């Protein structure tokens, strides 16, 4: 059966496909870092909240970490908007179709995120009042966000298989068609969850460092705990990552092996992960930079996998282009101005107390 794929809209792309793909991958990396902290963070908080019922260090740790979770959630959502915009622009006809087939489930993401977000606030604002019940709040929140990750994994995999669209359509009612949960999807989901715990582990280790002056003991303990989580999860990731890699269809793996750039990116990602692992106990900053490199390389590799999947069906580089350069330049200028503004606001918030104004 010939695959049924909607035709792209007859409006030219507003920039060359390469630039749009770069922005897609770049903004996805930004989203990924925040998302990892959020998803890994709620998983770590759930475990620590449970342990914190008997261990005061875990209790204090969850209280402090919970404070950064609302902004992390906000930025995960906002940073996610950009890659979703570019994926719709470049791969819209695949993304909309896979989404429409599973519309009810896909729509559920909005509500899961909404309730999860309020869960984060509830946990943070009522941390002490909730007492032992706090663990349930954060557990439910974690389940909601893991569910979001699951739905994303399903849809992002489904959109790569246009050859399945029509048969799925024939065998169900549009909106209620949930593709099979394969070993590939399971390993992919696990790959993301383990990465999230690793990154969030490193994140809380860095965060704990900030408590050095007020509570040096907790800061040390928190750092060690975070690093342990990071190292443990990264070691597990070598296995999960392999499983995921070998769950990919043979032709996709062959396409990757045949692409020298893709192989180079994978090797770089692994080397950087090893570097992060080795430096984590002594040099958190270096380890963080290395792991950011791994995440970036993995996002690039993911793009190669997507291209390999879609190669027989769709090449976005064939789409007509009519650059909207004036408004694009405007976007770049505003982005720089916006980042400078955020930088200034963060500077005034975190600058040493002595230089603050009278009422501080």
């Amino acid at each position: 059966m010939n695959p049924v794929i909607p035709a792209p809209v007859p409006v030219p792309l507003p920039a060359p496909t390469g630039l749009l793909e770069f922005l897609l991958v770049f903004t996805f990396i930004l989203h990924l870092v925040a998302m990892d902290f959020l998803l890994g963070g709620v998983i770590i908080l759930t475990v620590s909240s449970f342990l914190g019922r008997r261990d005061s260090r875990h209790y204090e740790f969850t209280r402090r970490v919970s404070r950064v979770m609302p902004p992390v959630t906000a930025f995960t959502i906002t940073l996610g908007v950009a890659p979703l915009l570019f994926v719709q622009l470049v791969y819209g006809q695949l993304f909309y179709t896979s989404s429409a087939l599973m519309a009810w489930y896909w729509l559920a993401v909005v509500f899961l995120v909404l309730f999860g977000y309020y869960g984060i606030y509830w946990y943070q604002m009522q941390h002490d009042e909730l007492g032992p019940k706090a663990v349930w709040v954060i557990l439910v929140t974690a389940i909601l966000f893991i569910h979001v990750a699951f739905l994303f994994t399903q849809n992002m995999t489904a959109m790569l298989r246009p050859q399945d669209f029509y048969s799925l359509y024939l065998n169900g009612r549009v909106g209620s068609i949930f593709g099979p949960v394969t070993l590939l999807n399971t390993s992919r989901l696990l790959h993301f969850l383990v990465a999230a715990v690793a990154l969030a582990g490193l994140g809380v280790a860095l965060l704990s460092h900030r408590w050095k002056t007020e509570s040096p003991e907790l800061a040390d303990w928190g750092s060690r705990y975070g690093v342990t989580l990071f190292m443990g999860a990264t070691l597990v990731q070598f296995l999960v990552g392999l499983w995921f890699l070998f769950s990919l269809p043979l032709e996709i793996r062959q396409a990757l092996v045949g692409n020298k750039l893709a192989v180079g990116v994978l090797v770089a990602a692994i080397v950087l992960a090893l570097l992060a692992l080795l430096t984590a106990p002594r040099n958190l900053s270096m380890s963080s930079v290395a792991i950011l490199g791994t995440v970036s390389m993995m996002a690039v590799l993911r793009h190669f996998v997507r291209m390999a999947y879609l190669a027989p069906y769709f090449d976005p580089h064939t789409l007509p282009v009519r650059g909207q350069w004036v408004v694009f330049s405007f976007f770049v200028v505003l982005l720089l101005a916006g980042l400078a503004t955020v930088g200034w606001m963060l500077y005034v918030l975190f600058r040493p107390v002595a230089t603050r104004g009278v009422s501080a």
Partner: protein
Amino acid sequence: MNYPVWEPHLLGGGMVIGIIAILHVFVSHFAVGGGLFLPLTERKAYRENNPALLEYVKSHSKFFVLVVLVFGAVSGVGIWWNIGLVSPEATATLIHVFVWGWAIEWVFFIVEIAAAFIYYYGWDRLDPQTHLTVGWIYFGAAWASLLVINGILTFMLTPGRWIEKQTFASAYFNPGMLPSLLVRTAVCVALAGVYALITSSAVRDVVLRNNVVRYAAQWLLLSALAIPLAGIWYISTLPSMAREISMGGSPVVTLFAGLSILLSVLLVAFTYFGPYRHPQAFSTVFAFLLAALALSTTGVTEWAREAVRKPYTIYGYMYSNSLRLADMEQVQEQGILKSAKWVRLHEVDPNALERSGNEVFNVECASCHTVNGYNSIRFAVKGWDGAMIDYQLAHLNELKGFMPPFVGTEAERKALADWLLSLNPRPASLGREGGDSASPRSSAGYPVEGAAQP
């Protein structure tokens, strides 16, 4: 046609979008107006050296963060999620035309969210002047995000010169953009007052409470002066058919447009005679009733604004069922089933007319009509005989200006008519006439008198 049509059972896609969109509009306009309310009221507290008022602003900012950053942000993404599911073709078009507009809006979102958090966390860490500056940065970014999205929204109803020029500037600077921006900015200010009435009604200190309640009411009353003027300007930019639909052309839309005016007047009257004139008698229950009234006003107004765009999703370019005007001729020639990608039958099966008709319905009508729920087609054709249905289909856009024309072959139209007729089985004595327009009940193919009665 190009995409599988998701028909969310009884609700209908439009209704799902409507529910999320109306709640989002109600919160997102507060996100902008509240952003003006916070620094202005904070400054007022400093100038009057009023620590109690400053405490109120602090507590209001917590409420603001919880409502705006969570519900506002998620529901905003939610609309986008949802329009992609219900109208992928139109969403894809909007994204192609406006991607850099959206990218710019994204920058404003980042600034907005960072500023909101820093404003909220900065109460005890920033000096008053810097804190106020952060508040103004928030408002600037929030209003700028409205500036961007407003142009994209009005584009759908008044795409103006874009139809010929197809450039970003011709799309964004469309006829409805400026008046709509004024209306929405005024609504933002009004909603800032509505939400402030909720938080101020709960203030314990009686003197402060009365002052803030009155002050919040002024926000709503002042903006109520601007809304009608900007509104009239906005309506003057609408396509003439859109104006006609809201002024008698379609009874339901006219009713909603009228309700919008009525509810707005009620909201202003209740605010004037309630919190403004008698702040001491104002209560939180009253505040929530006013908020409910404001939400209803937002709901009917946005509903009417969406409805007057019919039969288009993008005026003069794409119909509500995602068919482009430019493609109509070709689809008419080769038939809708052959043109559509997501059908089980690619041409009318003479042995399965009803099933073929159902397919035509799914492709061409299901983006607005459900079978049994919202805008139910079963209800719409109740009492019509085959000839009446066929006549209506053949002259759809002439008889009902808010509907796109039927497009497809004659066989497809007859099959659709046949399926529509089967939705309301007739008593055995009357028999079934099928989609045959040459039936004795209407030999000329016109609806005979009384044909609308079962």
